[in-house]
């Protein structure tokens, strides 16, 4: 560290603060990108193997701690033990972020490959490090781009294997979880509407378009465009809102929720 100039030293510290990586990793990444901070992030995230030199022996130990006794996977029981160790509620949305990092295919399951390479990519080889990272993962939800990725990841993660669409109950649960994080004033109306009128599974298109809808159309619907190529379910939702006088033009509902 002492060998570095002051500007470089600042960058290393910044990098470490943001990524949570070790000094060694930070130096490596910054050097590889010729001391551009942005470039270093790219390097850091696209080449996970350089981020941390995790001890694969420790990873094996961690895995075997949670592994299901009958199959070579971590199943629901293992996950609840993990949550316990991490001092996190299994229902906590941060578990979705963890799954996203591990690129888990299905809810409540980690294959060995997902678990180990996921932790490797995160640079975690001990529970302490894991616990430290949880806090950082929470902040990742605030990032617009990452939230979108996590949101879209959630669809595939939550749906039943082999099915194309997401069961309504699961979808509603996920939405309530996700939109608790990213405030959307109409989420309760949306869920009520689905239960009252739709009662069918949710397609991927509807799932991903809903986030766009929540982000771009304001809750008073003043900038809603009927010709706007929204999925018909969203069109019907708007109709439902208007029919039931939930939206009164010019009288937007509680804004305080929206940040």
């Amino acid at each position, binding site marked *: 560290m002492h060998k570095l100039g002051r500007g470089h030293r600042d960058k290393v510290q910044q990098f470490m603060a943001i990524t949570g990586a070790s000094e060694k990793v930070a130096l490596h990444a910054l050097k590889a990108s010729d001391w551009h901070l942005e470039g270093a992030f790219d390097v850091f995230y696209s080449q996970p193997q350089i981020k941390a030199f995790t001890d694969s022996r420790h990873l094996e130990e961690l895995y075997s701690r949670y592994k299901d006794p009958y199959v070579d996977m971590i199943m629901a029981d293992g996950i609840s033990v993990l949550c316990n160790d991490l001092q996190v509620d299994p229902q906590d949305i941060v578990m979705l972020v963890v799954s996203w990092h591990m690129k888990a295919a299905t809810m409540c399951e980690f294959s060995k490959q997902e678990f180990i390479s996921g932790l490797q990519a995160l640079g975690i080889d001990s529970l302490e490090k894991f616990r430290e990272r949880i806090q950082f993962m929470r902040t990742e939800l605030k990032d617009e781009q990452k939230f979108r990725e996590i949101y879209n990841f959630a669809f595939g993660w939550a749906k039943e294997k082999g099915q194309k669409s997401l069961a309504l109950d699961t979808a509603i649960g996920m939405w309530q979880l996700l939109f608790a994080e990213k405030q959307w004033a109409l989420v309760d109306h949306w869920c009520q509407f689905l239960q009252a009128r739709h009662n069918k599974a949710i397609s*991927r*298109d509807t799932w991903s*378009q809903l986030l*766009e809808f929540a982000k771009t159309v304001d809750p008073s619907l003043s900038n809603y465009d009927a*010709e*706007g*190529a929204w*999925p018909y379910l969203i*069109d019907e939702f708007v109709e439902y809102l208007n029919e039931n006088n939930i939206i009164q033009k010019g009288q937007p509902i509680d804004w305080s929720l929206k940040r």
Partner: protein
Amino acid sequence: MSTQKKRNFQIEAFKHRVVVDPKYAEKTWKILEHAIHEIYNHNASGLSFEELYSAPKRNFQIGPLKRQIVMDPNYADKTWKILEEGIHEIYNCNISGLSFEELYRNAYNMVLHKFGEKLYSGLVTTMTHHLEVISKSIEAAQGGLFLEELNRKWADHNKALQMIRDILMYMDRTFIPSTHKTPVHELGLNLWRDNIIHSAKIQTRLQDTLLDLVLRERTGEVINRGLMRNVIKMLMDLGSSVYQDDFEKHFLEVSADFYRAESQQFIECCDCGEYLKKAERRLNEEMERVSHYLDAKSEAKITSVVEKEMVESHMQRLVHMENSGLINMLVDDKYEDLGRMYSLFRRVPNGLFIIRDVMTSHIRSTGKQLVTDPERLKDPVDFVQRLLDEKDKNDKIINLAFNNDKTFQNALNSSFEYFINLNSRSPEFISLFVDDKLRKGLKGVSEEDVEIVLDKVMMLFRYLQEKDVFEKYYKQHLAKRLLSGKTVSDDAERSLIVKLKTECGYQFTSKLEGMFTDMKTSEDTMQGFYASSFAETGDGPTLAVQVLTTGSWPTQPSATCNLPAEILGVCEKFRGYYLGTHTGRRLSWQTNMGTADLKATFGRGQKHELNVSTHQMCALMLFNNADRLSYKEIEQATEIPASDLKRCLQSMACVKGKNILRKEPMSKDIAEDDAFFVNDKFSSKFYKVKIGTVVAQRESEPENQETRQRVEEDRKPQIEAAIVRIMKSRRVLDHNNIVAEVTKQLQSRFLPSPVLIKKRIESLIEREFLERDKVDRKLYRYLA
């Protein structure tokens, strides 16, 4: 005295010349002789009077004239006196004593001797003086004589002017152009204008007199049109500005006032037709007036005045006039009045638009009434016939009254399209109408008439938005016609199919054509069957099978009923034969579509041949072994679906004259616990009795729903196919464009709603034919 003097030096001059040119006289005479010849030969156009008169002299006059100016200083005054005298005489119509030659020569000399100025100003003064006198005498003319006096004086003035011009010809030719003065004739006209027409006492009087005459003619009096024409002609001769300022301008103003008042009066007391008649007559009168005594250029102006005052300002009121307006005319087929309205309204801006607008809304509202009236829905054939009548009626109006105006035809078409589609059953009814015509309606009608009816039906068909619904029903109805052998004319059937094909393409009719092919093949098959060894049945019943290709026919998945043993035997034989000749096929009996002929002997020995449906036959055959059967027993034995069974029993037990069965208890409807007997007392005038099934010709409500649903289902793949076709060629397209293109592609069959298209797009996204663009969510990409 003066003449004496002049002669003196001319003689001198001659003397002088004669010496110089001894041949002069001869040469000059040659010219004159030639001219005289030409005059006799009526070939005077090439001759110059002035040249003949003076040219020969020019050569030698130069010398003597120089001397003369010096000689007589009073010459100009004297000469002018002579000319002035002459002009006086001319104006007094006293020309017999005048020598034209002399006057001309004097005028000529004056110009020659540089007294042109004096001559010209003298002329102006003299003429002005005379015109003042004339003006007095015109002013003095009383009442009706005023115009006549004016006209007469004008004629006199013209005559005088003609003569004066001739006398002053030389001045007109040489002096006036070189000094840029007004030529004599024009001068005369100008002086007339300033002294007579524009004199204070005449100007307004003339206007008033003329306008009064026009007014009198308008109110029906006969006026002297010749006089009128002359006076107007005078004004025009004085220059178009005189005509316009002194007459036309006031004429148009007065006319506008007149017609404003008159139209106001008419509109209060006349009905629309009468008013239009009057307006048209007024318009014609004005045009006639122009041709009789006004400038042709005034026609456009005066007609536009009449159009504005009589038509344009009252258009709305006329069109909407109670009891006689446009709508009443349309209702009562008043072709003449309508034609009049059309030709009058066409003259003014927006006129036709108003007519078209009112007509369109009228057709729409009557049409809407027609198609939504629940009474009309009871009889589909009448319903369609009324539509056709309505169309004929309006076509005729447009043809006879509206000059076959394209914009009116378009308005009519769009109106029909609008209201026909208001009733979702229109496609069904049109198909039923065709069914009715092809079943019985066209018997004994010539081929041309059949074509006319079919063409009319096609015209209605064109208005339909849901052509696929029509196809569905048409298929059902055609199937029934073909299977029951009810088609009157094969040619008519085929002709309609050809029409549908030209309208909607091969796809639309391929299945219909398949049905005809099946009928033909079945005939051959039956011949083959009876020629083969399979058919040796002895006394068994004769079977006629129609083999229908699945998919071409609108087969309902119906539970097959239990056929009587006798029939079943023959059926099995046929099955054996058919499957033997066509391997790999499957036959299933459509018992709900067949018919049977039965020989029946009733209790008192009456023998009849009964024509019944297959279901009825199944039920009747049971009575060969039983006298009394309950509804339940029949249902169990035949396994005919309840609704069908009820209908077929109803038609055998409850229809008067066809009641071959007796029911207990007697009632109109079939109940679950009814019992049936053969009606021993059955009697009929005919040996052959046809037992119709009580068919709901129109579909019942649930059936209708079902057909709708099937149509809706059929549309889904069509919409998807269209989307894929479009996306395959465009690769990337935004939502609204896809909707527009799909609508366009499918228009010839039905009108897909945007919501429906959207749902199909979403389904295609789910099945990964399409995806949304990552950046612009309104864009779709085609995934190959």
